[in-house]
């Protein structure tokens, strides 16, 4: 069975700042990857290795200085709200709107006709288990619930692809475990392609069909590890020998890259890729 290539990343390099600017940062160097439809790929690597940058580039929020990304055969030059939805680590819910208003607004932006919005919204909220909290404001919810709401908003857009940048990064470990299990269940039910950036080895091992391990900055993909375990993954998987072996392998691969990152004497500040784009 041949699965089609959902996202093709072709030798993407990216540099922040002008080429003659001494303070410029080379974030990515010749990153290439092919992501198949329906799979969950985790991007993992040391801090500043460019994985978030690559995610932004994949979603059309940034243009790379070299190379390009193709989504379903088309070159990515701008955000593609019908094909790609984002979930960010930082809380991106609009605080003046309730949960359901937030979900609705995403669809307004995408251009979903009014008649469809209600059904999609209730479906999405049900999928993340927030139906009872539709009328709450983000300030009234816990961190985990807020991220669930952000996920619901992304799901309601019914895109083929979901790009998630450390969505559970700000949450405590127990919430992360639960949300991870829920995400796995979601994946088994839909045909979505998910690209998931994380720092957590356990999270990557539990969620991913394939893990792309990044090298230290300037980042490129050092190795790809396949995890052959069907979704939805059970909690027991975490204690299995297969899990431990994969996790150990990730640890070994990453360890030297992390050391390299820490050893950098002159570490230029990592530019916040999102901030740059927003301040037009």
């Amino acid at each position, binding site marked *: 069975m041949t699965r089609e290539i959902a996202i093709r990343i072709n030798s993407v390099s990216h540099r922040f700042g002008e080429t003659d600017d001494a303070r410029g940062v080379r974030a990515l160097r010749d990153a290439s990857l092919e992501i198949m439809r329906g799979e969950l790929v985790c991007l993992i690597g040391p801090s500043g290795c460019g994985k978030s940058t690559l995610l932004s580039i994949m*979603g*059309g*929020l940034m243009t790379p200085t070299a190379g390009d990304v193709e989504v379903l055969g088309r070159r990515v030059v701008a*955000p*593609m*709200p*019908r094909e*790609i*939805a*984002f979930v*960010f680590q*930082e*809380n*991106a819910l*609009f*605080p*003046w*709107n309730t949960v359901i208003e937030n979900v609705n*607004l*995403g669809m*307004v*932006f*995408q*251009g979903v006709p009014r008649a469809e919005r209600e059904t999609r919204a209730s479906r999405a909220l049900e999928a993340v288990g927030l139906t009872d909290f539709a009328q709450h*404001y983000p*300030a009234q919810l816990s961190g985990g619930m807020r991220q669930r709401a952000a996920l619901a908003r992304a799901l309601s*857009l019914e895109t083929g692809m979901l790009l998630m940048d450390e969505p559970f990064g700000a949450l405590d470990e127990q919430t992360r475990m639960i949300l991870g299990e829920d995400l796995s269940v979601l994946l088994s039910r839909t045909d979505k392609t998910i690209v998931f950036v994380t720092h957590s080895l356990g999270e990557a091992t539990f969620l991913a069909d394939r893990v792309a391990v990044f090298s230290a900055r300037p980042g490129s993909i050092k190795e790809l590890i396949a995890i052959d375990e069907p979704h939805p993954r059970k909690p027991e998987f975490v204690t299995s020998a297969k899990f431990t072996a994969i996790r150990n392998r990730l640890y070994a691969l990453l360890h030297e890259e992390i050391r390299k990152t820490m050893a950098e004497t002159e570490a230029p500040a990592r530019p*916040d890729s*999102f*901030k740059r*784009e*927003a*301040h037009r």
Partner: protein
Amino acid sequence: MTSRTTWTAAALRAWLRRPWLARIGVVVFLLGVWEIAARWLIDPMFISPPSRVFMSLDALLETRGVPAALRVTFWELGIAFVLSVVIGLVIGLPLGLAPFARRSFMPIILLLYGTPQVTILPLFVLYFGIGPASKIAFGVSHGFFPVIVTIVAGVQNIKPILLTSARSMGASRYQILRHIVFPHMIPSFFAGMRLAMTGVLLGVLLAELYVSTAGIGYFTTLFTQSFDPTRLLGLVALLAAMAIVLNEIVRRAEVHFSRWHSE
């Protein structure tokens, strides 16, 4: 709650524990001190006890011209406030949305905002006359600055992640303005309105007090020169009440519209 209240020492102390009650107690105490001092300790030419002031309020209002002056002042405050908000919006919105204009003109605006405007009060009266126009103008010149400053701050404070998120969902420029910039700006706008009201109150009342030939200033001068503390205190009290009511209205509006603002 029992139908008979037992006034034990403990119950009394428990009641005194409530801050709002204690606050009222402080106010009552101060009024009492004022009453005693004005009745028995100080020359009645200089001060009048609150009881007499309160009783003479009707006499004050029967004084020819006082109700009219109060009414005119109230309208001056209202008009100056509305003008301040409108002008503040008209200037503040474009500044907030255009970074280059903001960077160029905000320093000038902040500089003007920081100068002691009271020095040019005589100029205002020279230019606009002793009627309501100068009072309104002076009030507006105090009131529109905070509106501009808060609107610009409100637009600038938007977390970049919200704009990025909207862009990723395909929002157009107009949609971003309407669904993100505007709602985000509302609490700042209302805070600006609260400050505008404070400024307008200061400006209008300063101008009114300065012009001693008409309006409130005429009566304050009259009552001062004729050593009539009763009516003077009454007039000041009424104006203070006006100020409190107006301030409170704007403050409540601000609280109401900023409910989501947890930051």
